[in-house]
Structures are given as C-alpha cells and as structure tokens.
C-alpha cells in the first residue's frame, strides 16, 4: 500500500472511531459537571472523550485531504503491507495466540503453554527431540515454577487442578 493509501485508510479509521465514540458516550459516560466546576466552563467526565471524538473527526478529514496533496502523490509506491506468503504464517500465529488465551482457563497455564509452544515451533520448523523437548516441556515448567512458586502468582490450574 502506498503512503497515499495508508492516509486514506487511516482517515477512514479515524472517522469510524470518532463516530463510535460519539455513539457510545451517552450510554457509558456521565454528562454531569464535575463537582467544583460548572460555573464558567462545564467540565464533565464526558469532556475529554468527546474532545477526542471531535479530534478524530478532524484528523480523519485532514488525513484524507492530505492524501490528495502533491507531495504524497509523488512518493514511490511502497512495498506491500504484507507479502502473500506471510499471510498464512501471520494468521496461524494469531489463531494460536487466541486459542492459547481462550483455552488457558480450561487447560491450565502449564498445559496450554506447552501445547502453544509446541504448535508454533512445529509449524515454524523446529525439529529434533531435544529441541522440541526443551520447548514443550522444560520452558513451560520453568516459567510455571518461577512465576508460580517464587513470585507467588497463582496461575490457572485448569483440568490439572487437584
């Protein structure tokens, strides 16, 4: 995507955010003046969020407008944002990551981490029993022991719970 394209997409995103905030604020944020203010200038909890929404609208418009400027148009087309071969790799990583988080409660940290690391390593080319063993067994256990026992962080136990 060229810089021009980026500006336009970003401009669109900015306008979308602006709209979203304007829609959400009345339900989520109180519009009552903060105690102590209100006499000359109304400052409410909604002041800053709404200011942000307005700013995003302005920025969105300016981004799209700037995309037509000559300076930008002259720039050579950039490389692609993402290569074709990269897409499956990226998707796999993201899906694994999401699966990791959403199954952790059920499987427990140790098991989930073990599977997560194993899957990613196998997909991206790690081979050999020692390497895989370290990745899938030693690392999760080391992390679990250090954070769970030394730093006293109660990690999810999942189905291994006793």
């Amino acid at each position, binding site marked *: 995507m060229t810089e021009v394209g980026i500006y336009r997409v970003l401009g669109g995103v900015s306008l979308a955010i602006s709209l979203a905030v304007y829609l959400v604020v009345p339900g989520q944020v109180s519009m009552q003046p903060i105690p*102590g203010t209100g006499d000359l*200038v109304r400052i409410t909890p909604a002041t800053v969020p709404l200011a942000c929404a307005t700013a995003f609208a302005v920025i969105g418009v300016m981004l799209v407008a700037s995309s037509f400027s000559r300076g930008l148009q002259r720039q050579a087309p950039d490389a692609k944002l993402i290569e074709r071969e990269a897409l499956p790799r990226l998707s796999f*990583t993201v899906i694994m990551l999401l699966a990791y988080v959403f199954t952790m409660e059920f499987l427990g940290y140790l098991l989930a981490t073990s599977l997560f*690391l194993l899957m990613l*390593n196998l997909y991206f080319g790690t081979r050999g029993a020692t390497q895989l063993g370290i990745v899938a067994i030693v690392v999760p256990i080391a992390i679990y022991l250090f954070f769970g026992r030394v730093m006293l962080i109660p990690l999810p136990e999942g189905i291994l719970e006793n």
Partner: protein
Amino acid sequence: MQYEAIIDGFWMILDWGPLAMLAAGILIGILVGSMPGLTATMAIALLVPLSYQLPALLGIPLLIGIYKGGLYGGAIPAILISTPGTGGAAATIFDGYPMAQQGKARKALQMSLVASTAGDAISDVVLFLFMAPLAMVALLFGAPEYFALFVFSLVIIAGVTGDSFLKGVFAAFLGLLVSTIGIDSVSGSSRFTFGNLNFTGGINFMTMLIGLFAVSEVLIQSEKGFRDRDRKSSDLLGAAHGENSLTWREAWGMRRVIAQSSAIGTFIGIIPGLGAPIAAFLAYTFAKRTSRNPELFGKGSLEGVAAPESANNAVNGANFLPLFAFGIPGDIIAAVMLGAFVAQGMRPGPDLFTQHAATMYALLWGMIIANAMLFLFAWFLTSLYARIVLIPKRILFPAILAIATVGSYSLNNNLFDVKAMIVFGIVGYGMKKFGIPFAPMIITALLGRSVENSLVQSYIVLEGKLMNFLSHPIAMAFFVLTGVVLLAAAIGAKRRKPGGEN
C-alpha cells in the same frame, strides 16, 4: 551540613550485612527487572514484609538494591526482545532493539548500563548535596503547575512523530481515549466500563506496553517465518567482539546526552507523581532534538539508548527527595518504601534527618555504593544476556509470548489483562505497518488521567478564571515553552516541505 552524621553513616554502611543486602537486592532487581511483566515493584512488594522484621540497615538496603537493579534490568529485554521490562525502559526499545538486530546487542546493553549508572550517580549526588533547597522545588508545584508541565510534556513528546504530524496526533488521541476508561477518583465517575467489572480499573499501562511492543513484534516476525539471518553466531554477536563492544571513545562521546538526560530525570524525580516513563520519553525527545544526527534515532542510534536510560535511573535517586523531605513518595516504588521506613520507626518528614541522621546518611552512602556494585555485576552479565540473541527466533519469540502472558496475567490474576495485551498487540502491529509512532500514544495513555485531574483541580484553585493562570509564573513559563516548541516545529516543517503535506 551534619558532618559527623555523614561520616558515621559512611562507616555504618561499610559493614558485611548491609553490603550483602545491597548486593543481593541488586541481583534480585536485575533478574526481576529483566523478566517481561515482572517489575521491581512486585519484588519489593514481596520483600517489604521481610524488611519490616530486619533492622533498618539490613532491610532497607535490600529494597534499595532491588529498586536500582530493577531499573537497569528493564532495559535488557527492551533491547534484546523488544519487550519493556519496566515502564521506564519503553523508550529504550526505539533504538536498543534495532541495535540488537544489527548485531550490536552487547554494545547496546553496555551503553545502557553506563548511562544508567551515570544517571543514578548524578541524581544520588544531587540528592546528597542539595536535598534541602531542591525539596523546595517540589513545593512549588501545585495543580496549575502540574497541568502546564503535562501539557508541555505532551506537546514535546507528541512532536517526536518522525515524519507525519497527523499520524502522531492520531496516536496521541488514541492514547488519550484509552486513558479515560475506568473509574476516576477525582470526578468519582466511571467511564466506558460497559457493565464489565474488569474495565473499572482502566487499561493497565504495562499490559499496554507489552502488547504494543512485544506481541506486535512477534506478529511481525511471524510474517517472515521467524527466520534468522543466515549468519554465523559470531556475526550476530558482532565480529570478534571488537565491533560489538562499547569503546571508551563512544562512551565519552555520550557525555553531553547523558548529562542532559540525567538533569531531566532528576528534575522529574523531584516532583512527586511523575515517574520514570515520562523522564525517559522526555529525555529521548530532547536528545533527538539536540542531536547532530537526528535521522539516526529509531534506527539504532547510541544516543537513543543513552538518553532514556540515564533519565530513568536519575529519577530513581531524585524520587527519594520528596520522600525524605516530606514523606510524599515520588512514585509507587518510593511509596512502598515509605511504608518500610515508617515501620522502622523512621517517619519521613522534616525531622527525619534530625532524629535519624546517621542512619539516613548511611542509606544515602548505600545508594552511591549500590551504583558501583550495579555497574560491576551488570557489566559481566551483559555478555551473558547478549547471548540470548543466539536463540533461534522460532523458539525465542513464542517463549516471549508465554512469559508476557504470565506477566500480564499477574497484574490482576485475570485473563482479561492477557486479552487486553493481545488487543494492543494487534493494534501495535497495525501501527507498525501504517507507520504510526508509538511514543505519543504511550505518553497520552500515561498522562491522560493526570492531565484531566490537574485541569479540574486547577479550575477549582483558579476559581474558574483563566486569567488567574498569570499569577502562577512557573505554569506560565511552561506554557510559553510549549508555544515556543510549537512555533519552532511549525517553522521547521514549513521550511522542510514547501507546499508538501500539511
């Protein structure tokens, strides 16, 4: 000057017990600080109860060691794996990580250590010599002054946008929006909680940083299949250690940047409520603006590592100033230490140095000695840590995710933070692809609430009349500075791109 107490204190700290505690603390601090998601605050929180049971000269040096070690330790994962170990190390990633990718990991670590130690030493000496007069500086800052300082910081840092002003402003407002989520103590209202209890605390700063920097980098690396460059390990570590080691000349060449950044860090540390991240970003920004090679910043500039690291450690020593003088902690770690002091019967405040003079000076000497110890220990550790670069990326990066997950989880023992981390990871990925800078977003997310609060407080204190700002010279000075910066930026932009993008 209480000469007798100063000398007594010196001998008091030079004992096996206190020195051992300092050393232990430093090692623990480096270890904990270098693990993403763990912070020195956690380690201190775990060990504070222990310090209650020990006599003051054993317990408190332990905490001091952890504090100092932790602040340096945070730079290690920042440089090696684009993951901030502490909030203050975030700015170090901008140049530290590229340096590691260029095979200069060890040099970056060494620079970071030199800068950190220098910054620490400078602020400790300042603390020692000028505590009384500088304490008064803290008292000059009321709500209007804070507000002006925040505005100044925001504008300055948002201005480090690289090429596109609009993208930087976009990032800034994104951070500001994120900062409004949750319950606020000053206004008493809750915003954007969507009925979900998890949102009431707002988005945790470290979660956001880890997501933005670490998770996004993993995603980016995954595109290339986590392929390592086909180079021999000696290349990765820098040819024959010559290229990868910090030279005297290089270090000496950094002296102006270090001095400037340490001054910034010390100033920020003296004023309660600010903290290391702000100091680091401000120092980075100033270093970039005053550098002879600003284009190198973000691509592996040595100055870009030296500046934030000296600043964030300088904050450390200076943070004790309002703590000792008034019992008002400069940041959360100092606050935890406050509890430790009080439990030892040493109530911070004006009579701290009259009632417990020798002990206090012993602790101050301890801080200075700790700097030397930190340097010694860490120097040898840099070679060790640098070898992490040798681990194949496909093993290293997933493991980083696993550790980052624990780190986020540990904040609230809740998977919500982990999910937030992933969301920010995706956002960070998008930002990297679109060329949107991180710094403005990070700063507004950090300062957003504080700016709002100080605005409300200023309004009340100034009785709603804007004109009353004029009676606050310090605040006005910062506003003027802000105006100057904006003007300079506008002029510079006009000159650089005639008729180009706006």
